[in-house]
Structures are given as structure tokens and as C-alpha cells.
């Protein structure tokens, strides 16, 4: 049964508004695949009411540990950011689809925007244990240096790493998508894996499609149940209708999403 109890071992402030939680949680640590999430109950009360879907950033089965990166965007995540060590959590998970795992030593390219780095760190980490190891390149973008959350953890797990900031405070100046097209051109990977804001993902999907490179994206949406029942987290599907981020996703092949309808709002 995909549910578990976890204990907060440590809570570290990474940058303004970003916290790294390390949880003791054997069930999730043993079962999680890169790209999956946990649906975390913030407290016992009714306000905040709903669980919060949070990407798994790292999973270490031998230590029974799971790391989760939280950005304080509202009440629920704001409360989690104040929790003390020893706090107990009720989790559903691991839930959702994961990234496809790179095969052999094939070259892949990871594209992260801000907090979207979390599921990509897990993916990069999983390749380090593979034999032969896939060649992992990464592009990590954000508004400022502060937005490049956990960049050292990410860079340490990649073979090549490009940082991009809009204000030019670290790495190249601009957007990840400014770097992506030339990178695809220079040395085409067999697949691009991307997670970040919708606008970034739409652009990444378009650039990959133009270059003929397969692309997977990890999507975010407000969520109700997390198990596929309420249809609250639906996003437009390229096949018409909608797909559920919690069940068919959060990782989708980029061609499964109707980006035009998604971005029309």
C-alpha cells in the first residue's frame, strides 16, 4: 500500500524560501523511483486541509532516508518550513509515474528551472549507480544565483553542468531555453528530461520537437486526492481531453501535453 509514516530528521534552509527536509521513511526510501512524489499531510487539523504533493529529491534506501525540497508558496508549505526535527508526517507515496531510466551509457540532457531541480537530482543520482553510466549533461536556470537551489548537489551528479541566470549573477545570462537549442545542436542527447515552470517546459518541449529529440517533462498542478479519483489535477492532453498529473504523470512524454491549451490561461 503506497502510504507511509515519516519522521523529520533535519530541516535545512537552502536559500530564501527553500527548505531541504530529510525524512526517516523506510517505505518510501525503498520504493521510490526518480520522478515520483509523496502526498504529505501538513498536520492533523482541517486548515490547511489538503495534502501537499512534493517531489522526491533523493532517496537512500540503505539509510531509510528521503530528501524533499520545499518552496514556501502558501500556507501549507509555509507551515512545513517551520516544523521541528522529530515532526511526524503521514504520507501517501511514492505516487505517480517516474522518469524513464537512461539505458547503458547513452548521453542525456537534464533541464531544470528553479525548484524543478528536485526530481532531476534524483534522476541524476540514480545514473551514478548504473554500470555503464549514462553521460549526464545538465542545464540549470533561475532568476538569480539564489534561485539555483541545491545546485552543488545537482552539479555533483552530472558530467557536464551549465548554470544560467536571468540577471547574470551566475553562469550564462539568459534563460535555459537560450542555451538548450545550441546544446542540442552541438551534441544531440538521446533524451531531454525537464522540470520547471510551465512556460519553460512549453518552450523546452517545442525546442526538442524541432530538434527531433525525445523529451520528458515533470508537471505541477494543484492536487486533490493524489490517487486519480478526484480529477482535480488534470492538464490538457494532446489526444484531446485531459490527463491527471497525479496518476498518468507527473512525468509525461512532452508530446502528451497540449501546450497551447495549457498556456492559454
Amino acid at each position, binding site marked *: *500500500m*503506497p*502510504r507511509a509514516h515519516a519522521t523529520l530528521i533535519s530541516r535545512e534552509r537552502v536559500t530564501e524560501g527553500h527548505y531541504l527536509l530529510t525524512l526517516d521513511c523506510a517505505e518510501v526510501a525503498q520504493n521510490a523511483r526518480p520522478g515520483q512524489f509523496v502526498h504529505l*499531510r501538513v498536520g492533523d487539523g*482541517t*486548515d*490547511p*486541509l*489538503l*495534502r501537499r504533493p512534493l517531489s522526491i529529491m533523493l532517496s537512500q534506501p540503505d539509510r531509510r532516508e528521503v530528501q524533499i525540497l520545499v518552496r514556501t508558496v502558501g*500556507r*501549507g508549505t509555509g507551515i512545513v518550513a517551520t516544523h521541528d526535527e522529530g515532526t511526524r508526517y*503521514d504520507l*501517501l507515496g511514492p505516487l505517480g509515474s517516474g522518469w524513464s531510466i537512461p539505458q547503458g551509457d547513452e548521453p542525456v540532457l537534464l533541464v531544470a528551472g528553479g525548484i524543478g531541480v528536485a526530481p532531476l537530482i534524483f534522476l541524476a543520482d540514480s545514473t551514478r549507480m548504473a554500470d555503464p553510466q549514462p553521460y549526464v549533461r545538465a542545464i540549470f536556470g533561475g532568476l538569480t544565483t539564489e534561485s539555483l537551489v541545491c545546485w552543488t548537489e545537482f552539479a555533483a551528479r552530472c558530467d557536464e553542468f551549465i548554470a544560467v541566470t536571468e540577471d547574470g549573477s551566475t553562469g550564462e545570462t539568459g534563460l535555459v531555453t537560450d542555451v538548450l537549442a545550441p546544446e542540442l545542436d552541438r551534441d544531440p542527447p538521446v533524451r531531454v528530461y525537464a522540470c520547471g515552470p510551465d512556460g519553460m517546459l512549453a518552450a523546452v518541449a517545442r525546442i526538442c520537437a524541432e530538434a527531433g529529440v525525445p523529451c520528458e517533462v515533470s508537471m505541477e*498542478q*494543484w*492536487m*486533490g*486526492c*493524489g*490517487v*486519480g*479519483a*478526484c*480529477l*482535480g*489535477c*488534470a*492538464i*490538457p492532453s494532446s489526444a*484531446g*481531453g*485531459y490527463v491527471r498529473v497525479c496518476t498518468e504523470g507527473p512525468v509525461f512524454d512532452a508530446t502528451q501535453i497540449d501546450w497551447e*491549451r*495549457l498556456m492559454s*490561461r
Partner: protein
Amino acid sequence: MSVAHPDLSVEIAGLSLQNPIMSASGTFGYGTEYAEYLDLSKLGAIVTKAVTLEPREGNPPPRVRETPAGMLNAIGLQNPGAEVFIREKLPELRAFGVPVIANISGRSVDEFARLAEMLSIEGVDALEVNISCPNVEHEGMTFGVDCEMTGRLTEAVCAATDLPVIVKLSPNVTDITVIARAAEEAGADALSLINTLLGMSIDVERRRPHLGNVTGGLSGPAVRPVAVRMVYEVSRAVDLPLIGMGGVMCASDALELILAGATAVAVGTANFVEPATMEAIIRGLADYCRRHQVVAIAELVGAVAR
């Protein structure tokens, strides 16, 4: 039965339920989504997500938004249509061995009647007529806020089926007892209430509604006092059994609705918060009965002091 083993069974419109707790339509999919999280055979009944004649895509995202002690939703009746429901969902639902109540929705009296006829098959134990969905135009609530339409629709559905007909009422009306009486006079076998309260929330930074549909239905603990009041009022206005719903999170909340006049209680939003909520509520009802020397829970229906 005895105080040590209280009788939790109830009867609704000819349906015998092993206990009064059932899923609220739209919050529990077709049951299977929750099969890993709780023992569905322990429930009083399963009420399905709304079924329509043709498949529905549903509303553009975002479809849900949390509010204080509650949530807004505007799913828009997304479902695969009656044919797929009958062929794929119903056999799985029947396997759980508890009564299946199919929630139906449509755009016209005729559509409701055709659906009722289609779903009058083995494996469906009752129909819940959704005249109260607030999230789809020219549907649901359009019927449920008007006495005459409620009457016509109820009559048409009752004529099209031999199954018990449960009419689901909207709280978005001036006087819910008037609509309840219209459904009763037209032949409804039971009533369920309340559907969600029409609401809205705004993202002030972006100056736009949070929901893709602009407005949505409010559910969760925030609406419970409204549900208790409406169940209380309707129970005094009609002679039909009631299924009460609205923000039930625990046994005590379910008991509030039962004491107010509900024979059975549906659990909705709470399933999202804790998937095993309904099992916990069923255990809690038995505990309450033991604590209060109640031999059969049916004794408590409408038993609030007046």
C-alpha cells in the same frame, strides 16, 4: 444485536446498507482508485462519480483550490460516458460486494430519462440524480434551483427506472425545503444533500480567479454547519429518508447529520485528506453506540432534541 455489538445497518429507499457510510459522488472515482487504501467491502454503499450519456472532457485547469478548512472544485463532470461506465467501471465496482449507487447527470429531462433507463441494469442498486452540480452550465443546478424543473425531472427519471431514485439537492437556493417537497411529490424515494456551495476565490497577485472555471463548488469542514442545518430543515419538511453530506471528517461529524435527520451519510472531501476516513467513521459510529447504550444506529436518525 446488543449494546456490545450495535446494529449499524440502515435502510434507504428499499436498499439495505450494512452501515450508513458511503462515498460522496465525485470524490471517490469508481471505487477502484481507493481499493489499495481501504477495504471497500466494509462500506455501506459506493456512490460513483457522475455518469453522463456521452463522455465529458471536463473543465480547464486549475480545477481545485484549497480554501480555509475547505476546497473549491470545478471538475466539470469529466467522465467516460454511460457506455464505458457500464462496460468497464461497473463490473469492477460490483466486485466489492456493496450496493452501487450511480450518480447521473444530463443536460435535459430526456437525457436524464435515457440515462436512467440505460443504467437500470443488474449491478446498479439505485440512482442518484444530480440536479445540483454547480460547475456546468445548462445542467445540474439549473434543474435543482427550480421547483417545477425538479418535479418534471424527478418524474421522468422515476418513470424510466424501477430502481430507487435519490434526488441530490443543491444548497444554492433560498429555501431548500421547497425543492425537497417538489422532489418528494414527483416520486423520489430518497434525497441526498448537500451538494457543494457555489464559491469563488481570486489570486490577488495575478488578479484573476484561481479556478479555470472562475467559480467552483465549496466543500469540506467549512460547509458542515450549512449541511447540518439543511438536513435538519428538510427532515422536518418531507417523509423521505435522507443521505446527509457536507464536510464530514469523523464519526462525530457523521453523527451530527444523523441526529439532524439523515439516515445515511456520505463522505467526500475527507477521502482526499485521509483515504481510510470512511472505515474510521464506521468504527467510530460503533464506539459511539456502545458509549451511549444505543442498540441500533437507526434509533439516532433525527434524534436531536428540539
